[in-house]
């Protein structure tokens, strides 16, 4: 893990939607960031004011430039602090951590459906790039609350069909991602998803037993499996069986763990 811990330098910080920022960082640990769906555990504050690290997904990587992109919503105290980091500042980052989306599960020629909700959209971008690179057809369904929350629509469109939904109908289709899947009758060989738990629950019911993978969120302490903050129960396991989202996840096959 020594090669997954260190300082990264801020290359750019760009607001990409209301309260949402794209942060590009550069440094040697980026060399390890090959798997989409993994996350970084970010120290947002060098003092003890905000003590805990924040888990943020890898949204994109440029291995040649040793640059990684995160997209995050500045909602609470820590992400708001993160939004103040300017070009040139250095940021203490642990990662890549966890098990990402299994790119292997999609074969060249397969259709992969990527379903993202809000701030669950970012990790799907790096995934889409890798899938397209190996000849998988990517269709993306991206759900946001409102027009002002949308980011990366064009970026995804360069990689395949994109269906955007907004809860208030201010852009794209009005409704939820599942409405778009139904409406457009989107069929696929494999599903990858990240987003709010209610969305993942619906997808779990629909895709149970299929090739389908979801990425979960939970509040974390250590981020590396030592503190047991982030566990979830195993579906149909013994009462004490569990998975750690930080090390066994955040991506799990649909149906493996209890949502």
């Amino acid at each position, binding site marked *: *893990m*020594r090669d997954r*811990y260190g300082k990264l330098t801020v290359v750019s910080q760009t607001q990409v939607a209301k309260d949402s920022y794209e942060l590009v960082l550069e440094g040697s640990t980026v060399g390890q960031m090959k798997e989409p769906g993994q996350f970084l555990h970010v*120290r947002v504050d060098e003092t*003890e*004011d*905000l*003590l*805990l*690290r924040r888990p943020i997904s890898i949204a994109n990587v440029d291995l040649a430039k040793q640059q990684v992109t995160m997209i995050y919503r500045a909602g609470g*105290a*820590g992400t708001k602090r993160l939004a103040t980091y300017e070009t040139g500042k250095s940021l*203490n980052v*642990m990662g890549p951590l966890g098990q990402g989306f299994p790119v292997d599960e999609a074969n060249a020629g397969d259709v992969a459906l990527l379903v993202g909700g809000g701030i669950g959209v970012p990790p799907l971008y790096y995934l889409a790039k890798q899938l397209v690179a190996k000849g998988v057809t990517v269709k993306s369904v991206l759900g946001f609350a409102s027009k002002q929350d949308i980011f990366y629509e064009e970026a995804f469109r360069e990689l395949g069909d994109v269906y955007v939904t907004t809860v208030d109908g201010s852009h794209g289709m009005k409704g939820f991602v599942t409405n778009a899947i139904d409406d457009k009758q989107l069929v696929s060989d494999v599903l990858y998803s990240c987003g709010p738990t209610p969305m993942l629950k619906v997808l779990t019911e629909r895709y149970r037993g299929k090739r389908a993978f979801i990425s979960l969120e*939970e*509040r*974390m*302490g*250590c*981020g*590396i*499996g*030592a*503190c*047991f*903050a*982030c*566990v*979830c*129960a195993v579906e149909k396991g*013994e*009462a*004490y*069986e*569990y998975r750690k989202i930080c*090390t066994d996840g955040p991506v799990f096959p649909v149906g493996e763990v209890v949502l």
Partner: protein
Amino acid sequence: MDRLRVDLPGLKMKNPVMPASGCFGFGKEYAQFFNLNELGAIAIKATTPEPRFGNPTPRVAETKAGMLNAIGLQNPGLAGVIEKELPRFNDYDVPILANIAGSTMTDYIEVAARLSTEKNVHALELNISCPNVKQGGIAFGTVPETAAELTREVKAVSQVPVYVKLSPNVSDIVAMAKAVEHAGADGLSMINTLLGMRIDVKTRQPILANTYGGLSGPAIKPVALRMIHQVSQQVDIPIIGMGGIQSAQDVIEFLLAGASCVAVGTANFVDPYTCPTIIDELPQWLDELEMNTVTEIIGGSWKRCKTHSLSH
């Protein structure tokens, strides 16, 4: 590096720094970052007789200069710890302090009797103070007589020295400490977490699924120092000091207060290299303080004259 050595019952420590129980799992995660042999000792996660799932999530919340946790003693159970976790330490030369917990006195006795016979267990740490376990724990931790009885029972079955980990959520920490010392405890660990809570103003509900959780981190350091200062002047057994330690300077403060060694908890999450960094920096601090050895510092804030060895 003999300047850093501290010899405590069951724990022959190369240096006075160990990770705190529950904040270091059973060691393997942090072994990815550094060689565990660098540590003075390791306090492993609480073991209960049976495997436990623990509390529902969210289990952690952030507070100013601190965090709350309500893990709920999740662990693989006695058999699991013995079969899967302890053998990993075969490859290391570092004393292990095994934290034990339970809901009843029988639980503690069962775990103590069995775990203390394991070659990779050098001392036990009785967690009588976990604020997150609804039944059991808390009562042991706040009533001196009950804590003493538990200590006595565990001492009777344990093959290794026994440290009792005190809860700070009490009116009279000195009374608790004296009671367990009198009952035969070989040492004290203090402090466990303060009971606290946070409320999410949006949902209007407690952030932790368990409602309350244990407050740890720099926020509690002044309370830990005060309790160690009070207790160390009143007992003759060594104290493993903890609560908000982040730096070598913090370690010195704890030793001066009267701790004989320290444990680092929450800080591991902030920086996985906290323990080795502190250990590296300690000799420099000894130089600055014009002290030869760590043991000279112990209790320095209240001892009249320098002591050259640890009498207890």
